[in-house]
């Protein structure tokens, strides 16, 4: 068991080291040869790794706290929007999934429109529109996250509920069980792996949605704003943008890992079962 853990940690370290080595190697190679395909490399295109890391501990801007602190605060802001959206989207998604499961008509009527990703393209517009309605600034963004969560959750809830073994359903009928009882005791547990599959997708999607949603408005408090801001000043301070991206990546991975951990705790079943 301990050997397993050691191996896992070892692989993690190896991957980390490998990525850094790849970055530095690529950079060094391109700097010395001056190749321009696929893109030209200089200190602005690819800042030194040390500079990116050290930038985190420098002030975000003049008279401001250290960058890493500022970024973490912004990340929390974005995280709250994403989390709120995720929870709402999940609840609504599960409800709609159940409705689709029981009503074939509703399913045929509405399922084709349950396609999530394109919402991202209209996100800034929705945010502008809702923002103009006088809602608190973070709400329209949470709505985007909710939408992006709702779609995969609804679809997978439906698939999961439909996947229940017909023999188990027969068993419940032999107990003269009510529809609700069967739903709760058999169909829902069968649907859990599918649900968590959707949750993992939705975790990422709600973070992405929150970041994109922050773009158009003057929301300065989140990561989206930080990205836009540092993108503007990229020629002066490239490391800041890279550092911000690292924090954004960490946020996305964090949401994903949280869902994965909850899955491990909730879905206790035969090891071979994977959805």
């Amino acid at each position: 068991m301990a050997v397993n853990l050691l191996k896992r940690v070892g692989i993690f370290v190896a991957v980390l080291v490998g990525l850094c080595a790849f970055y530095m190697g690529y950079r060094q190679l391109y700097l010395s040869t001056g190749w321009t395909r696929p893109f030209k490399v200089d200190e602005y295109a690819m800042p030194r790794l040390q500079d990116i890391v050290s930038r985190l501990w420098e002030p975000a801007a003049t008279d401001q706290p250290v960058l890493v602190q500022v970024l973490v605060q912004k990340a929390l802001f974005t995280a709250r929007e994403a989390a709120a959206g995720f929870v709402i989207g999940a609840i609504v998604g599960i409800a709609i999934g159940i409705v689709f499961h029981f009503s074939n008509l509703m399913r045929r009527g509405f399922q084709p429109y349950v396609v999530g990703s394109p919402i991202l393209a209209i996100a800034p517009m929705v945010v502008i529109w809702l923002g103009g309605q006088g809602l608190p600034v973070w709400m329209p963004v949470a709505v985007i996250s909710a939408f992006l969560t709702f779609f995969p959750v609804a679809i997978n809830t439906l698939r999961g509920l439909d996947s229940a073994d017909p023999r188990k359903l027969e068993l419940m009928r032999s107990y003269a069980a009510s529809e609700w009882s069967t739903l709760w005791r058999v169909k829902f547990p069968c649907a859990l792996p599918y649900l968590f599959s959707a949750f993992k997708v939705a975790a990422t999607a709600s973070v992405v949605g929150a970041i994109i949603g922050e773009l158009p408005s003057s929301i300065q408090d989140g990561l989206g704003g930080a990205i836009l801001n540092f993108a503007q000043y990229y020629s002066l301070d490239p490391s800041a943008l890279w550092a911000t991206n690292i924090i954004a990546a960490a946020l996305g991975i964090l949401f994903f890992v949280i869902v994965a951990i909850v899955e491990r705790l909730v879905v206790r079943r035969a090891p071979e079962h994977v959805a």
Partner: protein
Amino acid sequence: MTRARRFVAEWAPAVLILVLGLVGWELAVKTFGIQKFLLPKPSEIATAFWDERSILWPAGWYTFTEAFWGFVVGVFFGIAAALVLARFRPLGSALMPYFVAASAIPIIAFAPIGNAWFGIEKGSKIFIAALLCFFPVLVNTLRGLTSVRPQQVELMRSYAAGNAAVFRRVRIPTSLPYVFTALKVASVLAMIGAIVGEYFGGSQQQLGIQIKNSAALFQFETAWAAILVACILGIAFYLAVALAEIATMRRYPSAERARR
């Protein structure tokens, strides 16, 4: 019921909902007097769609080419990487969780860096779209290649089949459903990636910029018309992949098996 009747019965409710939705939208805006700059009527959007076509349709095509090439690049590298990792199994299974985690990174956040590298024209959007496509294609293709049942390989070996034959006759047909699932996902992601990538900076000839600018100017009917163009192209792209899937799978009927 004949196939045609079944097809109609299956799709009728959805079409009905679409029609009802559009009609309801039109009436709601009219009766509640919602202002144009908040939510335009479908008829106004349709008008804008036609009026602005000389700007929107070329922009749509431009953005589509960004998405398409991003798709090609991302899929190519994704499949290539999957093939390599399928060959070196322990490496593949050790790294798999990392690839899955990598798909959790908000890749779109790298758009400004893409702009710094490739400028704001096509290149940076192709880069983003390719990055978005890469991981899902890699993860799914690798899953497909490694999901071959040992008994089938054993069978081939009993015919003294070499590695290449096993690959061609067993691994490829088995992984095809997985690959096509990934391709369909990638087609959607590529389109989204191109458009949203443009929100971080681009030029007038790109559809995303058209959406962004019209929205900023509160010309929502043009913005929605541009989105309509994006939807049409996105759906067309997806359908093209789906058709390719049907055509290919016909050659490998036995592979039409356990899809996730």
